[in-house]
């Protein structure tokens, strides 16, 4: 049984934003290395969870994959097509294959357009759909995301956050994408609604064979929906592996700390577990430390950690990868 082909390949992407100051002649003050060397492959139909805290670059990576932001180095290849080489109309037309669901359901829908108009516009962006067919197709789409067809004559502000997010998902699906990037899609929603949207995304992905890149800062959400998890820190991936394994037996010190910091809604377990408290604050990508980006806060750091930048390497024979010089020692091998 041969492995499913690589559907999406992210090759050594670096997205840097220069920080400039000045009137007519700009002075370069520094560079924000939002994404600093990320390589990932996704199989078709896979759900990859991308987690990390603020400033780690996960949102920028998502936007780079979707060509909403241009990387300064590296390539993104989707089904053999080099997306980073596309420009202008070719890029615009290619967009139907990859879409995004944004974080803020209150800002990602045009408040002046009805749901019908929003969805119709999306449907007709790449495909000439005859007028008469539109209502039928839109109704089907609304039903697919769990909304009543009556919704189409309403405006975004008449819906709750969870419902708006469903509309945003419908819009993304309207163009018929194969890859969906969800950037913190449930972070702005109430807990009881989050579960609804997560279920929806998982179901749609399965039913439609979508490949989903799910970006979140919330590991517990990601654990549930993702096949694999990639943990990001300061623009780099520090750990990658099957979701359950990454959560139950994290390899990288940062992942360990991240997991131990998540509150468990179970008083007895919460009281028993040992917390790893990271000193200091998440660093700013403007001034990254030398060597391993995590070493200033790492409990296991030694001298060479400040000098060598660890590469993301396979751990033993498994599918797991970690970027830590001491990964074997720390995990008792």
């Amino acid at each position, binding site marked *: 049984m041969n492995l499913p082909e690589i559907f999406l390949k992210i090759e050594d992407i670096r997205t840097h934003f220069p920080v400039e100051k000045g009137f007519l002649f700009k002075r370069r003050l520094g560079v924000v290395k939002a994404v600093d060397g990320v390589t990932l492959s996704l199989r078709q139909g896979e759900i990859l969870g991308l987690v990390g805290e603020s400033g780690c670059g996960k949102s920028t990576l998502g936007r780079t994959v979707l060509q909403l932001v241009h990387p300064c180095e590296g390539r993104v290849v989707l089904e053999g097509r080099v997306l980073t080489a596309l420009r202008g109309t070719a890029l615009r037309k290619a967009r139907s294959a990859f879409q995004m669901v944004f974080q803020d359901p209150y800002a990602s829908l045009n408040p002046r357009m009805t749901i019908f108009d929003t969805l119709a516009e999306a449907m007709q962006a790449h495909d000439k759909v005859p007028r008469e067919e539109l209502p039928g197709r839109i109704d089907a789409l609304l039903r697919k995301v769990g909304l009543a067809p009556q919704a189409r004559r*309403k405006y975004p502000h008449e819906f709750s956050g969870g419902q708006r997010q469903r509309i945003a998902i419908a819009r993304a699906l309207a163009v018929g994408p194969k890859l969906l990037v969800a950037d913190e899609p449930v972070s702005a929603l109430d807990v009881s609604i989050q579960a609804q949207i997560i279920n929806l995304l998982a179901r749609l992905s399965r039913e439609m064979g979508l490949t989903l890149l799910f970006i979140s800062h919330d590991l517990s959400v990601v654990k549930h929906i993702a096949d694999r998890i990639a943990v990001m820190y300061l623009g780099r991936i520090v750990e990658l592996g099957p979701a359950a394994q990454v959560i139950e037996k994290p390899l990288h010190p940062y992942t360990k700390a991240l997991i131990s910091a998540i509150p468990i809604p179970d008083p007895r377990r919460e009281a028993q577990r040992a917390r790893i408290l990271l000193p200091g604050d998440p660093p700013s990508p403007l001034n990254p430390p030398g060597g391993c980006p995590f070493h200033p806060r790492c409990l296991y750091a030694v001298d060479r950690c400040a000098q060598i930048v660890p590469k993301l390497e396979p751990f033993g024979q498994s599918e797991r990868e970690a970027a830590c010089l001491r990964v074997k020692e720390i995990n008792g091998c």
Partner: protein
Amino acid sequence: MDSSTPIASVAPAESEGGSSFWQDARHRLWQNKLAVFGLVVLSILAALCFATYLFPNISGYTYERQNLALGPVPPSRAHWLGTDALGRDLLARLLYGGGISLLVGLCATLVSLTIGVIYGAIAGFAGGKLDMVMMRMVDILYALPFAIFVILLMVFFGQNLILLFVAIGAVEWLTMARIVRGQVMAVKRQEFVEAAHALGLREGRIIFRHIVPNLLGPIIVYATLTVPEVILLESFLSFLGLGVQPPQSSWGVLIKEGAEVMEEYPWLLIYPGAVMALTLFSLNFLGDGLRDALDVRGSKD
């Protein structure tokens, strides 16, 4: 079990059609008593003034018909607001002048609107160096003393009503440009615009379907608030003798004439002043009301 359609008892049956932003805004405006008052007053005044402007003889007296034998008389049954030193009916002059003042107000506002929106939109969309250069030019122009500029224009090109529109409009566009540019930049950054890009929509469609409709709110508000400013400017110029010339009247002219004789014939100042103040208040109430109505309410739940 993913039931997300609102269970009927939770969301009481809503009407089939949605309420658009404009319908909501109209409703909010209607509830604002001051704004409605302003709107009503303005409508009545405007109707009277324009009617008199177009048909100067409508009340039986025109703005220029003199009655030297009569001279200045206080309000009476024949002349409801009295007459001036040359026996001209004040009411007729007031309404006719109102027509001119309002006309100047509207036209100059339109001129400033056109220039300001185009300029501001270009700067806002272009961003970067072009935007910076354009805005610095606006800053420089702001520093020029308006009054002197207009006086120079009037002196060089003669006194002409059209020129008056242009002169005033040419000064008022600056603020409109700033407002439009700011609004364009703010809207450009909104997530739904980014979403439109992500969908692969054409640039033109994004601009006209997504960005422009979201600009209209502040533009309407500011335009409504520009009209009273222009009327004031015009009256200031006329007061200086630079704007509208007698025998044509505008409120500025009337106030000037009234001020000159206010001790002896106070009604010649009181009525024009009162009517102008009423108009300016009404416009301001309306403008404020529009601003409140069009203010995108944070519709977060």
